[in-house]
């Protein structure tokens, strides 16, 4: 019975991203040169820090994708919010105010997305494609087409992504990494075990059924997009902290990286499947690949090709799974 469970499609789907990561790390470990560098504490910390922005974005995107939608405005919202953070710091706000107001900004953009999608009943792809341009435009307008460098840096914000104090050891990790980890745990529980989380899956699985079962589909969708926007807003704060400046032209194409992470993490773009741990692992795996390619001094194009291949392979693994399942099942029935 246990074996059957092991071989069940759910279980395999859940561990798929971990297997992928494991394979990647294994391959790295087999290369002497890579092993000696990549598994050092300092380097691992670097990878983690580079993962934070995509991972936080992926938490929001996971909800959206599980609910059967998509949000192409993520990258633009991150840029917008990095500018907003800079502006707020310039105006002398404190840490909590900056954080909350920026996250709120992201949430408002998401609210607009969700509002249009549900009230005008339009495809998320189109609405967020439009919003992608709008948010980018607004961020350039806010920033006056330049990077925004606050005169008086706010140390607490800058420290979020700063690992300059102890570059060679794994600990202490920057605050941002802890924040991302904490959020991942919270969001994983929210998506798995709260009523809201169940509703997200139900909506993505079959909207009509969800409606029939008394789920307020439109309301929940608006909440999903707004929450996702808030996550992109938080990613924007992290983006600011990383550059210590607000940059309206940052994060172009980030939405595709985020979507790739979520999909590598086991989500289905037709909705109803996906998980937070998977998405975060997906983001981490991509950062590992980039880091490994750099260390090996592979040219950039190799890295692009490899990540492309990994995206296809990670999702294509589904098609190999039935074989593995059958294997497990045979074993269980012979028990």
């Amino acid at each position, binding site marked *: 019975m246990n074996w059957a469970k092991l071989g069940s499609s759910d279980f395999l789907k859940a561990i798929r991203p971990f297997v992928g990561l494991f394979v990647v790390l294994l391959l790295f470990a087999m290369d002497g040169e890579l092993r000696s*560098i*990549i598994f050092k504490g*300092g*380097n691992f910390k*670097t990878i983690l820090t*580079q993962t934070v922005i995509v991972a936080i974005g992926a938490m929001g995107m996971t909800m959206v994708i599980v609910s059967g939608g998509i949000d192409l405005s993520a990258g633009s919202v991150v840029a917008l919010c990095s500018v907003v953070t800079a502006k707020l710091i310039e105006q002398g706000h404190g840490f909590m105010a900056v954080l909350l107001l920026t996250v709120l900004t992201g949430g408002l953009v998401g609210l607009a997305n969700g509002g249009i999608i549900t009230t005008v009943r339009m495809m998320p792809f189109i609405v967020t494609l439009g919003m992608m341009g709008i948010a980018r435009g607004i961020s350039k307008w806010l*920033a*006056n*087409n*330049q*990077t*925004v*460098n606050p005169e008086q840096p706010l140390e607490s914000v800058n420290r979020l992504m*700063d*690992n*300059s104090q102890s*570059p*060679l050891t794994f600990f202490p990790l920057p605050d941002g990494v802890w924040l991302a980890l904490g959020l991942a745990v919270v969001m994983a529980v929210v998506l798995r075990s709260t009523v809201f989380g169940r509703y997200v899956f139900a909506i993505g699985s079959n909207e009509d059924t969800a409606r029939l079962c008394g789920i307020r589909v439109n309301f929940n969708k608006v909440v999903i997009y707004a929450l996702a926007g808030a996550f992109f807003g938080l990613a924007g704060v992290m*983006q600011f902290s*990383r*550059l*210590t*400046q607000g*940059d*309206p*032209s*940052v*994060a*172009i194409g980030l939405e595709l990286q985020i979507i790739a992470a979520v999909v590598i993490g086991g989500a289905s773009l037709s909705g109803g499947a996906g998980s937070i741990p998977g998405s975060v692992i997906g983001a981490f795996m991509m950062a590992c690949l*980039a*880091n490994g*390619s*750099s*260390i090996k*001094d592979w*040219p*950039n194009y190799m890295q692009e090709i490899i990540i492309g291949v990994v995206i296809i392979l990670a999702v294509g693994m589904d098609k190999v799974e039935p074989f593995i399942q059958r294997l497990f099942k045979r074993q269980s029935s012979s028990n």
Partner: protein
Amino acid sequence: GSQSGDSSGNGLSIVVIPKGTTHEFWKSIHAGAIKAKQELEAAGQPVEIIWKGPLKEDDRDEQIKVVENFIARGVDGMVLAPLDDRALVRPVEMAGNAKIPVVIIDSGLQSDNYASFIATDNYLGGRMGGAHLGKLLGGKGSVLLLRYAVGSASTTKRENGFLDELRKNFPGIRVLSSDQYAGATRDLAYTASQNLLSRYGEEVNGVFCPNESVSVSMTKALRDINKAGGRVKIIGFDTSVQSLRDLKSGDVQGLVVQNPVKMGYLGVMTLTEHLGGKTVEKRIDTGVVLVTSENMAEPDVQELLNPPLEKYLGTGN
């Protein structure tokens, strides 16, 4: 932002097209252009300066569109910082056929269909940087070159100047890596620097950065691994608020500095002269200066480092 002045009847309308708009370097060029406009107006020659960068930065096709659209719209002259020395040849030709003279600034163009070319000698700048780094390292050690972006003429010249200088005069210095590209934004440059240093962080003694975004990002990445402050000698290119902070704090040992205000200023001035029928020089060098913590305080260097942007651009931002 747009700085449309009064477009009175006999005024000239001049469009200034930078490569991008978010780097502070372009802000200085903009300031220079406005400075020229103000002087010209004071001298009784009204001009309208239109400031328009490509919609997507570092996208050649977008810059071509901007040039084309202004040819179609009809302006009196064009000051252009071409994103590519080949791709922009034809649009500049097109401007010629539409009787719109073009002054090229900052980066070269593989054509002589322009009125004048006003730029830094980038190759020389690269050599100056290489020489200074070589001297600081005493002719031995290992250095890194993180290139800027694929196909950018001005930075490629700097990179070549730097490598040539080392090859000729400092044969004892080993170049660890010189084929990684940072990419167009600070964020990309930062990630590239971090990853490059993961590998070479232990052995590197000196770094050359061919532009502002790479300088700032590489310095930040070195500071992260505790290698800044002189342990690794950093030579950067161009200035910004952040890179000056780095120079002051001793993280950066030298900055090769151009004179973007002069470039913008001379761009508009030369174009106006050309439009007025005067002959102008085909090549104007705006000079480079190597700024170190020693000469930083000198007044003319200060003028270069802290151009009076507010005076010309107002307190936007």
